[in-house]
């Protein structure tokens, strides 16, 4: 079986700075891959290349058998199948929770108003926020906003979900509620690529953990191996730092 996401020799420059230095990665359907590593290592850039929020400088990315690095590909269609959750939530502040969730399916004419409303109700039940359906985002806590943002992405019925440090902007007591939603999603078989500093989540939910540093995937292992028996000295140094502060 070919992988759902295939990345071949991906390079990305910002001006003269090389942020990604030849990334090769395959993610299979239903797999949960966590990207860990120090800030500035290129994790977020790699993630943002998968739905082309960043344009790769060179290399190939194939998602669901579509070579999305071709300039002829309509990225709007590709992005419908790739949900993304951002560190800063990025909910639409002028729309209610329901409108945030139903706006894109309605605007893209994928659903009728009634279908979109039903879907919003179903998704809000799933993330445990049905009672907030008609409130504005600013009236929600950070954790609630992020759960709505996950529901918004799921409303497009994606088969891949990208998470860009989804809990980094949250107060500590709200991290758990967001991770719980993500774990449920992983258990349901969603293909997920997660940039995270939550080593606990990586341990519990990931099928594979990748350690990135200086634009390279330095080490790749199952969570058990990565956290109990890391091999690369950079990985050991990084894990020592982040795990000792807990």
């Amino acid at each position, binding site marked *: 079986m070919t992988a759902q996401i295939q990345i071949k020799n991906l390079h990305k420059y910002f001006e003269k700075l090389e942020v990604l230095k030849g990334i090769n990665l395959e993610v299979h359907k239903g797999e949960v891959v966590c990207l860990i590593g120090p800030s500035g290592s290129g994790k977020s850039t790699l993630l943002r290349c998968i739905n082309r929020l960043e344009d790769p400088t060179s290399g190939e990315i194939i998602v669901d058998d579509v070579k999305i690095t071709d300039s002829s590909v309509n990225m*709007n269609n590709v*992005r419908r199948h790739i949900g*993304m959750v*951002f560190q800063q939530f*990025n909910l639409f502040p*002028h729309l209610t929770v329901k409108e945030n969730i139903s*706006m894109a399916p309605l605007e893209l004419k994928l659903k009728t108003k009634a279908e979109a409303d039903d879907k919003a109700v179903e998704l809000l039940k799933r993330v445990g926020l049905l009672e907030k359906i008609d409130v504005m985002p600013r009236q929600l806590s950070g954790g609630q906003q992020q759960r709505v943002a996950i529901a*918004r992405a799921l409303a497009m019925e994606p088969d891949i979900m990208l998470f860009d440090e989804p809990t980094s902007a949250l107060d500590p007591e709200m991290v758990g509620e967001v991770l719980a939603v993500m774990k449920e999603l992983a258990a349901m078989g969603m293909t997920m690529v997660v940039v995270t500093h939550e080593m606990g989540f990586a341990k519990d939910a990931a099928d594979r953990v990748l350690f990135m540093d200086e634009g390279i995937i330095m080490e790749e292992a199952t969570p058990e191996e990565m956290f109990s028996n890391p091999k690369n000295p950079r990985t050991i140094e990084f894990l020592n730092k982040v795990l000792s502060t807990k």
Partner: protein
Amino acid sequence: MNLGKVFGETYELLFQGLQVTIQVTVLSLLIAFVLGLITSLLGFSKTPLRWISKGYVWLVRGTPIMVQVFYIYFALPQLLQALGYDVRLTSFMAGLITLTLNAGAYMSEIFRGAILAVNSGQMEAARSLGLSKGQAMRKVVLPQAIRICLPSLVNQFIITLKDSSIISVIGLTDIMYQAKIYVGRSMESFATYTWVAVFYLVIITILTQIAKRVEKKVMI
């Protein structure tokens, strides 16, 4: 200083003039809103179209409105006639065009600033859902930008309302024009211009109050 007597003699004239002032202002603002929006969006385009946008704003900002109105009323028709087109503008048309082009350029800058003020994550979130650039602009960025620039837009409305008094120099029969005619006959400068100022003050105060309410309603 004959305030009472002058009011009695002029209020009909001044109200007539005020109607013209309001007509030309409202019409020009409506067109300028659309023109300004299109101009600001063109300014973000990566095609050469953006130079049209920038050139237009440069031209309007770099010349006084008095020069603009003379240019449109006197200079352009002469040029067009020399080229064989018999174009004559009424003072109302010339005034409308001048105020529209003027307000359009300033509004485009207001919109530009407001669009830039919307967090870039908003555009990214909308694009990540599969919306095109245009759809994301229309559904996500512009609704927020309009709210951000509402106070500046109201300010521009007021400026255009007041600038319309300049159009009286080409014979637009607005409130200022009527006042000048009356003063020419009666020599009652103080009383007449006092009433003109009061008329403007009242209109602008009402406008400001309405704007405040709207602002409160749509703030997010």
